[in-house]
């Protein structure tokens, strides 16, 4: 009996943790969805009559395009570096993550500036946006696909080869489908980021859902309608994610064994006389992607920065760098911890609702930062008011804002917005550990904490690191929410870069932009070191 009670308590606790955190993190999204309480038929009618179909078409095309583009690049590159030996492979393996540090709007501004300069062609088209965004968003797919490919059991290759299946066919029939959850996760991240992007599409003059949201808000002053549009966006994303999960409901992707560190040589590339792609071609492919997505724009930014640099502002500049770094670092630690907690709550809790709640809490990623920031402000503003009322009742004075306009609000917003990024990684990592591993350790009398530190942590190390880095870089790049929620006198590199860029002062924007990229490189390099 006592055992049952203990067990019940333990399970319940996980449910409380998972559900509690999810609900708190879901508050901003709920606040946005709450806007549906006042539905204006007249406004919707106007949207429907005029621009809605264009928003939808462009958003769907952009999202799908970026999804496919980043999938193609991410998967192809990950496949090359995990399967073949070619010139520069070791370098490309980590360098291909670098475009992650490049905010989409900055690559957009840079290339547009370059093309204008040389007068080649106009990149400000839907296709241009898709290509440019894919170029900086493919690392989401790449990093996850790379882990997935390299942790796939070698016997799968052996089995396929012995059944007369070629490497190419193996890729399409086995490697890719097994990596599907990882690839889709990466795609989903890239697609959500594309969906929520404002800077690039606004600059390119493409009417998407996001620009529509800002039009209705800024232009018409209809924040409610803007929130409703954002809510619709979130629901759409939820549907897509749910659909993907449903489609693989019966499949399992557990790792039955931990891949050997001293990995056996690749069955296909070891024995086949010649690979279906020549090694030289692979080097060229990697180099071209890296050059277009990273080296060329960074080089251009450096030139502009050099032309424009003012030595006088170097002090202020250093504080910008340290602000940005510290904020990104502390936030990524917090978010990864949250993501781990939620993933475990999902794993250990017997309540299946936890999974849905968590999924919902992670929706923030698909909501444009500015709208989300308002979603954050509303519950926090309410909370501040209650605290002040209470405080005034007890101490007869007001204490002012405790949450709004402080780092609490800012970090809360980051948590809501980037939880998804971390969560996808931690969940993916945990999914590959069979639950019976837990049972085995539990029966040995070790507590859950021990399971974590001894069994899971070593297995999850890569996922945790990947989550941390992705969040770090994302926070570093984050702009709209930072802009609205930051405390007084607090600036980040992204804020600086964007202020110049929206003021159409590209040269001035180059220095902070290139610094974002350079600061973003640091963890990427650390990550690759740690992964070896």
């Amino acid at each position: 009996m006592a055992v049952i009670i203990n067990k019940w308590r333990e399970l319940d606790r996980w449910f409380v943790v998972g559900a509690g955190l999810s609900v708190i993190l879901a508050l901003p999204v709920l606040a946005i969805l709450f806007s549906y309480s006042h539905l204006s038929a007249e406004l919707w009618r106007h949207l429907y009559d005029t621009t809605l179909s264009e928003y939808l078409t462009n958003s769907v095309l952009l999202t799908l395009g970026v999804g496919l583009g980043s999938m193609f690049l991410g998967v192809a590159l990950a496949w090359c570096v995990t399967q073949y030996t070619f010139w520069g492979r070791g370098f490309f393996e980590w360098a291909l993550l670098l475009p992650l540090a490049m905010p989409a709007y900055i690559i957009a501004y840079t290339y547009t500036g370059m093309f204008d300069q040389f007068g080649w062609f106009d990149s400000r088209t839907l296709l241009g946006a898709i290509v440019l965004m894919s170029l900086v968003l493919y690392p989401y797919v790449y990093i996850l696909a790379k882990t997935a490919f390299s942790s796939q059991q070698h016997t799968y290759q052996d089995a396929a080869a012995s059944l007369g299946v070629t490497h190419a066919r193996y890729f399409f029939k086995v490697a890719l489908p097994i990596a599907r959850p990882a690839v889709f996760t990466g795609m989903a991240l890239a697609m959500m980021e594309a969906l929520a992007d404002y800077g690039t599409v606004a600059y390119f003059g493409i009417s998407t859902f996001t620009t529509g949201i800002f039009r209705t808000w800024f232009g018409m002053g209809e924040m409610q309608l803007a929130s409703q549009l954002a809510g619709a966006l979130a629901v759409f994303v939820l549907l897509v994610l749910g659909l993907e999960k449903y489609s693989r409901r019966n499949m399992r992707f557990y790792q039955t064994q931990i891949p050997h560190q001293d990995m056996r040589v690749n069955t296909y590339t070891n024995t086949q006389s010649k690979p279906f792609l020549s090694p030289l071609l692979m080097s060229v492919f990697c180099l071209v992607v890296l050059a277009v997505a990273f080296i060329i724009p960074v080089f251009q930014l450096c030139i502009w920065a050099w032309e424009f640099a003012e030595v006088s502002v170097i002090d202020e500049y250093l504080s910008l760098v340290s602000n940005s770094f510290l904020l990104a670092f502390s936030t990524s630690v917090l978010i990864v911890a949250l993501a781990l907690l939620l993933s475990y709550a999902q794993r250990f809790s017997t309540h299946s609702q936890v999974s849905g709640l968590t999924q919902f809490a992670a929706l923030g990623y698909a909501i444009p930062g500015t709208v989300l920031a308002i979603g954050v402000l509303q519950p926090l503003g309410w909370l501040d008011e209650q605290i002040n009322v209470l405080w005034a009742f007890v101490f007869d004075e007001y204490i002012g804002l405790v949450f709004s306009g402080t780092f609490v609000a800012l970090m809360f917003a980051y948590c809501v917005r980037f939880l998804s990024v971390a969560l996808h990684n931690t969940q993916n990592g945990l999914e590959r550990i069979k639950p019976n591993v837990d049972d085995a350790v539990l029966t040995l009398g070790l507590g859950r904490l021990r399971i974590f530190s001894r069994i899971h942590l070593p297995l999850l190390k890569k996922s945790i690191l990947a989550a941390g880095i992705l969040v770090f870089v994302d926070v570093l790049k984050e702009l709209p929410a930072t802009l609205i929620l930051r405390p007084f006198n607090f600036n980040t590199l992204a804020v600086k870069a964007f202020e110049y860029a929206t003021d159409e002062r590209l040269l001035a924007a180059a220095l902070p932009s290139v610094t974002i990229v350079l600061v973003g490189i640091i963890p990427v390099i650390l990550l690759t070191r740690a992964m070896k």
Partner: protein
Amino acid sequence: MKKLAVALALSLLSPLSLPSMALANDNVVEAELNIYSARKEVLIKPLLDKFSEQYNVKINLVTGKADALLARAKSEGQFSPVDIIITTDVGRLARAKSQSLTQPMTAMLPEFVTLKDQDNHWVALTTRNRPILINPLTVDSNTITSYEDLIKPIFKGRVCIRSSSNIYNQSLVAAMIIQKGEEQALAWSKGLVENFARRPKGGDRDQIKALVSGVCDVAVANTYYLAAMRNADEASQAIANQVKVIWPNQSDRGVHLNISGIAIAKHAKNIHAANLLIETMLQKEAQYWYANTNYEYPVDPSIEWSGTLKAMGTFKHESIDLNQVGELNAQALRIMDKAGWR
């Protein structure tokens, strides 16, 4: 309060002596001033720093998009720390007022101040204009003298203008609604869309570049972008110098006018400092700097324009109720939606 009134009265007599006076009567202004600014940091911070130094007031600044900042102030409610709201567009000021985010200012405004709210909720600091720009090599400046000329058939496929999501265009159309009525505004928008050389994209500078690269022959852009380009790197200068400014509607209503302005927040705690800042911003020195850093026109007519502004010429501008322009923003956007102006 009394002391401040005295100080303010004195300041009217000799504006430049105010700093020392205020310092002499210490504790007149509060030690802090919290500002939400839609104007970029580089375009305002030096002025604020100077103010801070002069009056020993600590300035706390957050910059951002105007509507987002207003939303922040709104959700922060009565505990909001914000004292001063600075925006770059009249629409936002009107919106702030209509959402009860501002309060009347008590600052003594100089006589030249005409661009202000009738209830003193906001005051203009600079003015900005949105004239027509042409490539003089391909367009005869006599063929285009008004906004209405933009929809003439001869300009079919030759007009560049940025997206209707942009506030300047919304204000332009809103002003047109006031002066010519909704129907005319819609007809004009439709005609403009007919004449587009390309789908609206990029910023105002991009329209100027497009003029020179031959994508289009006629464009609409704010003057300060052109002025900034004329003072930037050689490549930009070369482009900007090939463009000619056409001041439209000089024989009737004048060129479209907008302002950048300032307001005191509804729940401001540092009201004296806030009023003092407004007064300071309207002083000659500040006016000169504030207008010049962004190549805008100072509201103080006695201040001499910079060479770049002079070179663009003098003009007559619209004289309409700016609050109304702000209020008609949404309607303007709907008209542009209907006209297919994206």
